[in-house]
């Protein structure tokens, strides 16, 4: 035992150093990859750059704006005008070609088909995205720390010390952050110059703000995330839950049960001291489950303020190009009515390319209502685990959204690593039978999808159905992951119940023994 403890302490000492080294290694890895954009050419992959996140479209929007046209003219750019003014100047090309030979009728242009951007600007751009990724990882880490503290507290209040002992083996947040940083999808979307790292950053900012109860930060992150890509608007539910209940509240039923048990314990035991202790315990545990309205009201106020602020900024920047109405039409309208039917990893592009025009509106409503429909049941079920709820929401949105990219996948993978309970239980019980299947599925899809895309688009030997089949498999995988993790969460709650009951019984037994010996 002593040896083990020393080992764990060693680990504890080593861990921070190891974390930082791994984190920096990932940053350096990104920078190395970013230095060879022409060889990798991730920015043109349909998995990375959707019409919403494509950097090339952003460059076109900026060019249009510079030539005093609306950046939204021409159905090219569909992002935020703020992003345009921040990232736009980095897209200006410099003339740095080395080998262009146009002597003959056929222009032998090696620049073509690769990143056309001049090298230094391109590096600065990727630096921005690397920094965004790194900051996101840091936010995940500190959110994780926060969550773990809260979780330990709640476990203590439940008296589940056994779980706590085991959980000491795992260091909070680090793994989640490293999972986020070293996720190949994150790396690809970062190196591929899509704007999804920035969207992920603001989403994470919101969750971090909510976890640490920094209401203005949470509101800022939420408003900005909603502004950048519409779907994070649904994260208002977990954010409010986080603010209301605190980062980690045990299930209400568990506490009630515990309370009941302690009461029954109370009745059985004659010792007054212990009764008072129990009462204290019960009070402690009951307290955090009260929904505190104050931060929520603050959040609403702050969100209104930030939204107003963002809208004013947008209105200023699109004033001469049709105003806010045009902006909403070209951003949110473009997201909601799936106009661009270019293939991506989702399923909606092919669906809306094939569906009869008569039914188009119906299916648009169905698919988007599907996202909204599940919000409330999930919120009721999982209100004690807001971070997990956020994961489920993001996963659902990334499956049903109109232009999904692997950036969303990267985010919800990171959030998945964040949930303490899940990780502990995975470690303790290794109960995720499907995890291997899911892992294989993800690997398979991510390998097959480029192959099918190549067969269809570039070689012309395949068929659209080939690529659509991989998109279908990907959607199924996401269904599986949502399903299995929620059902796993359910079993976890049962475990918790069982554990708590067991712990309670043990406690009672000990008390009885004590009282017996005292007697």
């Amino acid at each position, binding site marked *: 035992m002593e040896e083990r403890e020393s080992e764990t302490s060693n680990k504890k000492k080593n861990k921070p150093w190891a974390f930082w080294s791994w984190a920096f290694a990932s940053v350096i890895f990104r920078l190395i990859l970013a230095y060879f954009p022409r060889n990798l050419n991730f920015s043109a992959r349909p998995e990375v750059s959707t019409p919403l996140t494509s950097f*090339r479209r952003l*460059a*076109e929007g*900026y*060019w*249009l704006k510079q030539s005093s046209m609306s950046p939204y003219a*021409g*159905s*090219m750019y569909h992002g935020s005008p703020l992003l345009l003014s921040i990232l736009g100047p980095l*897209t200006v090309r410099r*003339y740095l*070609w080395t080998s*262009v*030979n*146009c002597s003959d*009728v056929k*222009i032998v*242009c090696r620049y*073509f*088909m690769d990143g*056309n951007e001049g090298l230094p600007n391109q590096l600065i751009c990727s630096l921005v995205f690397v920094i965004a990724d790194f900051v996101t990882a840091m936010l995940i880490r500190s959110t994780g720390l926060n969550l773990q503290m809260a979780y330990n507290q709640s476990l203590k209040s439940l008296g589940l010390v056994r779980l706590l002992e085991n959980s000491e083996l795992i260091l909070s947040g680090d793994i989640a952050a490293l999972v986020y940083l070293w996720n190949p999808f994150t790396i690809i979307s970062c190196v591929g110059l899509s704007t999804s790292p920035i969207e992920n950053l603001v989403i994470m900012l919101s969750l971090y703000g909510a976890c640490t109860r920094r209401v203005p930060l949470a509101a800022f992150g939420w408003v900005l995330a909603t502004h950048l890509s519409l779907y994070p608007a649904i994260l208002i539910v977990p954010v409010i839950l986080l603010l209301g209940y605190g980062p980690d509240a045990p299930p209400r039923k568990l506490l009630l049960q515990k309370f009941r048990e302690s009461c029954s314990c109370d009745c059985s035991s004659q010792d007054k001291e212990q009764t008072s202790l129990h009462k204290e315990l019960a009070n402690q545990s009951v307290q955090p489950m009260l929904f505190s309205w104050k931060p929520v009201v603050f959040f609403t106020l702050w969100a209104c303020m930030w939204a107003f602020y963002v809208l004013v900024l947008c209105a200023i920047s699109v004033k001469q190009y049709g105003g806010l109405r045009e902006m909403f039409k070209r951003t949110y309208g473009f997201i909601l009515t799936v106009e*661009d*039917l270019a293939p991506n990893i989702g*399923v909606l*592009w*092919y669906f809306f*390319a*094939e*569906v*009869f*025009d008569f039914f188009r509106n119906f299916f648009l409503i169905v698919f988007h209502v599907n996202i909204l429909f*599940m919000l409330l049941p*999930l919120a009721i079920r999982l209100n004690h685990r807001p971070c997990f709820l956020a994961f489920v929401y993001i996963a659902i949105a990334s*499956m*049903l959204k109109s232009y999904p990219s692997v950036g969303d996948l990267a985010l919800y993978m990171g959030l998945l690593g964040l949930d303490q309970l899940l990780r502990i239980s995975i470690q303790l*019980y290794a*109960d995720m*039978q*499907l995890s291997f*299947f899911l892992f294989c599925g993800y690997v398979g899809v991510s390998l097959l999808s480029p192959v099918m895309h190549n067969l*269809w*688009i*570039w070689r012309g030997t395949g068929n*659209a*159905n080939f690529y659509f089949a991989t998109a*279908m498999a990907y959607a*199924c995988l996401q*269904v*599986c992951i*949502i*399903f*299995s993790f*929620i*059902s796993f969460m*359910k079993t976890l*709650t*049962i*475990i918790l*119940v*069982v554990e708590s009951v067991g712990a309670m019984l043990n406690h009672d037994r000990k008390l009885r023994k004590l009282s017996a010996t005292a007697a």
Partner: protein
Amino acid sequence: MAFPRFAILFLFLLFFLSQSIGKEEEFSEELLLKPLPDRKVLAHFHFQSRVPPTETHGPHHRLFPKAIYQLVHKFHIREMELSFTQGRWNYERWGGNDPISSNNAKPPGVELWAVFDVPQDQVDASWKNLTHTLSGLFCASINFLESSTTYSAPDWGFRQFAGNLRYGTLPREAVCTENLTPWLKLLPCRDKAGLSVLMDRPSIYRGYYHSQRLHLTSTEFDSTGLNMGIVLEQTLTVVLQPNNPGNSMTYSSDSTLPQSWSLSSLFGRKVGGKCVLAKSSNIFVQLEGDLVSELNSRKKENERDDTDNLDFEGSWSNFGFELSVSPDSVINEINSVHKGGPSVMYKFLVENYSDSKPFDLGLMWKIPVAWSCPQAPLQDNRFLMGSGNERGAIAISLKPIKQSEGFQTPDINNRDKCSFHVNVFQVVPWYVKVYYHTLQIFVDGKPQSVPDVVTKMRVSPSEDKVSPGVMELALKLPCGIMSAALTLDFDKGFLHIDEYPPDANQGFDIPSAVVSFPDFRASVNFLEDASSNKSPLLVKMQERSPVLSYTEVLLVPLTTPDFSMPYNVITITCTVFALYFGSLLNVLRRRMGEEERLLKSKAAKKNEQFPVLLSKLYAKLRGRPWEPPQSSTSTSSSSSSSSLLSSKLLIKVVLVAAVAAGWQYYSR
């Protein structure tokens, strides 16, 4: 710009002409024949009808087609041009700097542009109505130009008109006799008499290039009071290969004898006199300046005293060739700007001939001669770059045809400072999504920064399913360039299955780009003796129109979805969503029950019949011996429950996979 001023001057001239001639309707028919350097013959029919203004002469006409008159009045057309073309004008061989090529070389398919005399907001409505009317009038699918995705409103890149110009092309329109017949119906003599008798359908459509054009100029609605009525100009330009069985075998070499031809060998018909309604009916044979000087130099070499003379039996012989009919007059070009020298026109009056004495002009070459046509300053080519169906690039390359010579420039003296302008006008359909920020310009193979070369640029980017992308560029290029190129990257769009044409895998056409050289004017001045009744064709050739050329039509293959399976896609996608919805609902709903069950089993061990039964059932289903649940340890129960779930899920996944496999099998 000198052009508008000159045009006004010209209009004045026409005005006075019409005043002096009298205020009658007039119709004239003319045919220009021109041997081409590559053994082909250009035949250019030119019919012109003019009607005096309605204000002074009323709305009733003797000659002028009523349909056109009504069209002009209904849609308030100031100017309109409609052309049906098959084949591509070969700028390199057939010339690019003369009025014929800059006015009559048209992009393949249908091209329509019109200037309306209506307020700005009604222009589009007028255009839409006009396309439908013309579609009915000419038996063509011009009504496809109604959709806002096909037409554009060029500002200055195409013509020098502000505002009310609309321009649209249908590159894939097949042109045939059903378009020619209504066109001929507009002529007072149809094809029963006069020059149009020559339009034998098989011989016309056998040609290498065929373009029928209808040009309308109306001043009916002019506010300046310069009302001269409507001028309808109908031209048919064909490039034919004369097929004389005698000397057709020698093709390639430079010194071969040019192909001799006659009207009957070209068209298979002869002209039996003029259309009686025509004011004038002339046939011209034009020899290029280069050809004339070549012949003259040959003559000097040979030093034979073989002057132009009248032979016996009415034929007319020159040193190099012999005309079977002696021309009524020979007209020389004046103020020639081309380096070859002045070109020569031989004029024949058709009114001297009749059915009994048909006119059959033949041109017989005597010596082998090679020459070239006047070229545009730069030859333009357009092509696609890249492979695959995801993205590509459009490149327009501009090159002088003869690299060594360079070309004539307005001010050739200060060569290093000298520069000339090139206007490029390009319309790109919306499914070719051009990134205009990727515009790159190469001069002599070196990339140039865009502001250095582009003096003026107007881009209206394409909007999905609403409008095409229009780019108008004014380039300023140095004189002595060897090559210039523009490239633009694009992404290929993906369309809804209804938007694909029936032959989707053929690809989509990007209409021709128009490259014009505003510094150069294509005009040929012919010195004619009697200026009172000037031939409309020669007047037309004197107009200083800018040198204009069309690039190739590009064929862009777009990716196609599987057209056969909308139902499959809908059902399968919906299955996945149902799977998502059902499983999520299931997992949310069932949690409650199981938990309660578990609690029940915890609380009262006697009442555990149901879960045991359930687990027995599952055990049977899974073919495993049933193990009684050990309720004291939590792990096993939870694991069993979750494994049950996961097995169910696996079954579902396998089911979906089976469905998918079946679908794939079926779709094969």
